């Protein structure tokens, strides 16, 4: 224990830290410009000078380590004089354009000068001029205002790990360059904006539109983009979002954000938002009143229910909607529509994986704290790029690598490739053969690490696999096994590419078994903000809220008692099965809440044909999406930032979503559904989202006793007060192995880019400026073979159709796959892809899609 005295106050610290940090702990603020708590000490600005007894001259608090018995003063006449002098130096070349600068009012330099002076400067020479730069789509740079604290550079290097900015020139000519030059890799996280103390780096999204003191309100909410669930502070003026910022110490992102979270909010105020309910008459949409629409929908659903029974109705829930929306949705489907046909787009990834793995290992096995990734000494990444899918989780992996962890990447995780210290720790495997690599790894680990004999079904399956190991030559395997067995804290990060294979369940088993053998922590990447919540709310055909299997009588009865109605007998079907059933005319009506399956499912034409053949289609959304266009009734809902509710992130942390602005047109999803349900004879009467959570807290064994108050305080981490289910399978489900060799020239696969997510992001103008159109990513070697240069336009054709896009050469691609994203209207890769179902997980296997590439 070290004791120091600061301004007469005794401070005890239990680990080595600087005087500045120790003082801060005791609530004593020492002024600084270059120090930032997310960054390492720098010692450049010289403002944090303090007096230390028995030391001859003033010391810099940010670099001075606190030593036992130190007596420190942080304010005195001498200190104030030095600070005033340092500020005078910082101002000699500063333009002093506060009247015009957007930072004024929240500028650290301005605040310090206000406190310490000087009131006049002695500098009479000409000021150095650095031209402003407005060439970047997002960042406006005024390097004349820069105080060379280098926080932005250090943030970009040591936290974000993008190294997109550097100091150029020396001495007084030093400035920070370049943002987003082609030779660097700006990830547009905007974390440089957060740390810039002055107006040197500003966002063009809000520049000149308001001043910090004109913010009407600031609302803490959760990001609408991915399953990490970062905390956002939405700043609103005149019912319009002006800026979205993170805050240190708030939320799991602790002051950091990614491009989508920080700059992707503009979709909410898009001109394309639906303005009133639409009812299709003779193939054309007509505006209708809410009352008409409610009665029309309820009437048609009742007709179909009476005529064909509940099994002819199906519902698709949404991982972008809140827990409350999804809870009400599944209750409506089960109670009012009398069907268990409930599923969601998460079936093609997260939900399929989560269900399979929890069936094997028990509930909560994926509930690991993202921040804890930093402490891993080995991280196995497979099936996707965490830095693009879940960027803040990706940063934790980069941080672990900086701390010395071995990051092992199987396949391509572009954002991690530069940080893999040992280049042999990247496993390049034959295309679409992730399952083989994982099984091989598993059986090799099993050779030295025996099973734990806790889970007989898994033990048995591992032994079975070891008896006929996969034939595949991975030369790094021995080293990999050695690293994993020699590590104390292992994390496995699995992306959803793994699931989207015909043999996806093989990979999932291997992942589960590795987690079990190595006592690893498992993280499943989640693309949407509430995939876990959707599962917890029971938006699955075979699961009730709380992940309780519907076929277990006890659970079923409890819910029936609470809901005062029986749960339908018919077994529900999964998403892709629904599409088949629609095509077979077994399902006549489909209710879609906040989802766009025509665009977001593979083989878009096939899906479109199916939906067109429905007797009745209802779509509840905020935009007239590709799917909504096919609907008989379109109901405008509220978007993120317009409603209250909760999201459950991939760690199973429940967090509050809060209304920041008011919408003039939409209604909450749960409210729309409640109205229709009541008309259909199943009364639902919730006055607020909070009331719904009160019900969830009563009926769900997982969310027991959760309140908004508790959730708002940020304490709702798994396992809450609930009862996780530890049910285990007696037999590991397996399907017939279908291992194919893929020998065509090119295969088409899905790209998950950093800057887009689809329906929302393509309506966020900032994200469109950063990345305006899709490109076909191809390896340099294959581009060479086809004589393609960066930017050449090509036609890419599969059996499903043709899309024309420019080419982008990507050195991180090492095989004959070409990648296209599924983010832009009419140019989504899903339109070109076919699928065949994984018989175990019921997820679509998207592999082996041959593609022809021709120069246009």
């Amino acid at each position, binding site marked *: 224990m070290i004791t120091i005295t600061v301004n007469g106050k005794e401070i005890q610290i239990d680990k080595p830290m600087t005087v500045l940090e120790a003082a801060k702990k005791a609530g004593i603020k020492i002024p600084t410009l270059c120090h930032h708590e997310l960054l390492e*000490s*720098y*010692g*450049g*600005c*010289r*403002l944090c*000078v303090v007096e230390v007894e028995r030391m001859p*001259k*003033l010391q810099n608090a940010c*670099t001075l*380590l606190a030593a036992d018995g130190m007596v420190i003063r942080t304010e005195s006449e001498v200190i104030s004089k*030095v600070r005033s*002098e*340092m500020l*005078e*130096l*910082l101002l*000699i*070349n500063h333009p002093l354009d506060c009247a015009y600068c957007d930072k004024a009012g929240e500028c650290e330099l301005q605040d310090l000068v206000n406190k310490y002076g000087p009131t006049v400067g*002695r*500098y009479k*020479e000409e000021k*150095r001029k650095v031209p402003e730069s407005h060439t970047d789509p997002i960042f406006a740079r005024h390097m004349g205002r820069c*105080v*060379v604290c*280098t926080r932005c550079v250090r943030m970009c290097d040591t936290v974000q790990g993008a190294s997109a900015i*550097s*100091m150029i*020139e*020396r*001495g*007084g*000519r*030093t400035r920070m360059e370049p943002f987003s030059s082609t030779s660097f890799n700006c990830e547009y996280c905007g974390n440089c904006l957060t740390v810039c103390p002055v107006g040197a780096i500003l966002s063009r999204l809000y520049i000149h539109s308001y001043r910090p003191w004109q913010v009407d309100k600031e609302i803490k909410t959760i990001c609408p983009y991915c399953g990490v669930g970062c905390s956002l502070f939405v700043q609103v003026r005149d019912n319009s979002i002006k800026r979205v910022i993170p805050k240190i110490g708030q939320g799991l992102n602790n002051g950091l954000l990614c491009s989508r979270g920080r700059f992707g909010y503009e979709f909410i105020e898009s001109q394309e938002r639906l303005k009133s309910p639409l009812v299709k008459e003779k193939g054309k949409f007509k505006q209708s009143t809410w009352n008409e629409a409610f009665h029309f929908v309820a009437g048609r659903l009742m007709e179909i229910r009476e005529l064909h029974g509940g099994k002819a109705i199906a519902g698709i829930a949404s991982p972008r909607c809140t827990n409350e929306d999804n809870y009400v949705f599944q209750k409506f489907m089960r109670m009012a529509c009398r069907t268990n046909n409930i599923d969601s787009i998460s079936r093609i990834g997260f939900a399929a994986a989560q269900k399979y793995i929890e069936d094997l290992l028990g509930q909560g096995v994926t509930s690991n704290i993202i921040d804890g990734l930093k402490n891993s000494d080995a991280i196995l990444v497979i099936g996707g790029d965490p830095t693009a899918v879940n960027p803040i989780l990706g940063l934790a992996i980069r941080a672990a690598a900086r701390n010395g962890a071995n990051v092992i990447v199987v396949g391509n995780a572009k954002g991690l490739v530069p940080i893999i210290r040992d280049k042999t720790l990247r496993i390049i495997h034959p295309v679409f053969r992730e399952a083989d690599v994982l099984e091989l790894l598993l059986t090799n680990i099993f050779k030295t690490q025996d099973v734990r004999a806790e889970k007989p079904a898994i033990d048995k399956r591992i032994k079975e696999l070891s008896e006929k190991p996969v034939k595949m030559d991975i030369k790094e395997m021995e080293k990999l096994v050695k690293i994993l067995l020699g590590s104390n804290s292992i994390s496995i990060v699995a992306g959803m590419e793994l699931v989207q294979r015909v043999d996806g369940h093989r990979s999932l088993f291997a992942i589960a078994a590795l987690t079990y053998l190595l006592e690893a922590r498992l993280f499943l990447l989640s693309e949407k903000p509430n995939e876990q919540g959707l599962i917890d709310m029971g938006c699955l055909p075979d699961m009730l809220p709380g992940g309780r299997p519907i076929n277990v009588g006890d659970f079923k009865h409890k819910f029936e008692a609470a809901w005062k109605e029986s749960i339908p007998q018919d077994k529900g079907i999964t998403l892709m099965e629904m599409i088949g059933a629609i095509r077979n005319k077994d399902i006549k009506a489909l209710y879609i809440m906040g989802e766009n399956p025509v665009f977001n499912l593979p083989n878009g034409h096939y899906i479109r044909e199916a939906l067109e053949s429905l007797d009745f289609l209802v779509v509840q959304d905020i935009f007239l999406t590709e799917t909504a266009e096919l609907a008989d009734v379109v109901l405008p809902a509220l978007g993120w930032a317009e409603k209250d509710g909760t999201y459950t992130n991939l760690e199973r942390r429940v967090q509050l979503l809060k209304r920041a602005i008011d919408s003039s047109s939409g209604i909450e999803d749960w409210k729309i559904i409640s109205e229709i349900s009541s008309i259909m004879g199943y009364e639902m009467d919730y006055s607020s989202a909070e009331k719904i959570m009160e019900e969830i807290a009563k009926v769900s064994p997982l969310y027991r006793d959760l309140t908004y108050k508790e959730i708002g305080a940020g304490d709702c981490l798994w396992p809450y007060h609930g009862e996780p289910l530890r049910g285990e399978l007696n037999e590991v489900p397996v399907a017939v192995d279908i291992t194919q060799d893929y020998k065509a020239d090119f295969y088409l696969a899905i790209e998950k880019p950093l800057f887009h997510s689809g329906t929302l992001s393509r309506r966020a103008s900032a994200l469109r400026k950063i990345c305006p159109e899709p490109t076909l990513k191809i390896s340099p070697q294959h581009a060479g073979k086809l004589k393609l240069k960066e930017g050449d336009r090509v036609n890419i054709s599969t059996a499903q159709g043709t899309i024309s896009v420019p080419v982008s050469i990507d050195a991180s691609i090492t095989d004959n796959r070409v990648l296209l994203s599924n983010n832009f209207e009419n140019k989504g890769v899903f339109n070109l892809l076919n699928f065949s179902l994984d018989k175990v997980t019921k997820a679509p296997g998207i592999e082996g899609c041959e593609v022809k590439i021709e120069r246009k």
Partner: protein
Amino acid sequence: MGKILLKNIENSNSADINEYLKIGGYKSLIKAFEMQPKDIIGEIRESGLRGRGGAGFPTAMKWSFAFADTKFPKYLICNADEGEPGTFKDRPILEKNPHLLIEGMVISGYAIGAEHGYVYLRGEYPYAKEVLNKAIAQAYEKNYLGDNILGENIKFHLTVYQGAGAYICGEETALIESLEGKRGQPRSKPPFPVNVGAWAMPTIINNVETLSNIPYIISVGGAGYSKIGARECTGPKLYSVSGCVEKPGVYELPMGTILRDIIFNYAGGIKSGKKLKAVFPGGISTPVLPADNIDCPMDFISMPRFGSMLGSGAVIVMDESVCMVKVAYRALKFFEHESCGKCTPCREGTDWLRKILERIECGKGREGDIELLSEVVDIMYGRCFCPLGDSAAGLVMSMIKHFRNEFEEHIRDKKCKNQK
């Protein structure tokens, strides 16, 4: 005292390993390998050797810190980034006597437990690079470098790394940053490089001249060596004399030789019979001495008593015709250009000082400028991250102290009388 560091350099082939071997080269290495590392450090301690880079830190003390550190690998870096204006003392060693340095480095590496050494060479020394690389190749060939030196199972490799022309990279922590491929900027101390240096491992950084003293110390023993030079400041010293003298050049003399002696005896006095005005005794980073204050022994201990420092031993001599305002201006132009930009006082202060001095020199000085200069110097002095900014401030301070009248003249007459 016979020549030790510059021995045999008149021989046009002195850089060749065979010539070096002829005069007894690499014999110290063989002797050192028969000693225990800690005994080598003991000899160095006894010799009283101080670092020749400018600070005069006792070499044995630095070594024993690194020796005691249990982290491996350790690194040995030779600071050959000789960039201080007026300093060219290391150059004859690098260009004419490279094997002396290599021998010194192998012994040092053995003593502290480093198996890899780097010579961080000044960007503007391309010829030295060529000579060094050739010498290193020869040393490898003769098995004085490699995995199993002289069959003694001792490993030492040596790499030349050339800087890109930044003065600041002569500062040891900035040098490490640069060696690691980063921007040349000083790091905070502590931790010191002896514990957390290159790639965060224990690292010894010694000047070329320091390391070149090692073979001689091993050969004659610490006690023998300490008989040379002054008390507490032992050994031979290379003085590079430049400016208005008859015979500029590098002089190898015992540490503590009187400055007047160096200028008037060894360097042949002031050029063209003019009168001495002032001297920078150890490069422009050391405070200037006026003509009446040059009876000082040139060593680390004595110089502060005369109001200056030994620095690198770069004696820059200025005669009566030299304008001191112009010297100050030119020096500040250098410091401003070489400031790395990390800390506020140096980055902004050198810029400000240069602008004021430029104005005064050009005849645009204003009433109060001398006071303003002093005020800016006060803001900077003692507040900079590394010695660069303090040196700049110190130079202006000493110039005003000794030659205030020249500044006043410039401001009053609105011109520099040396400029036509």
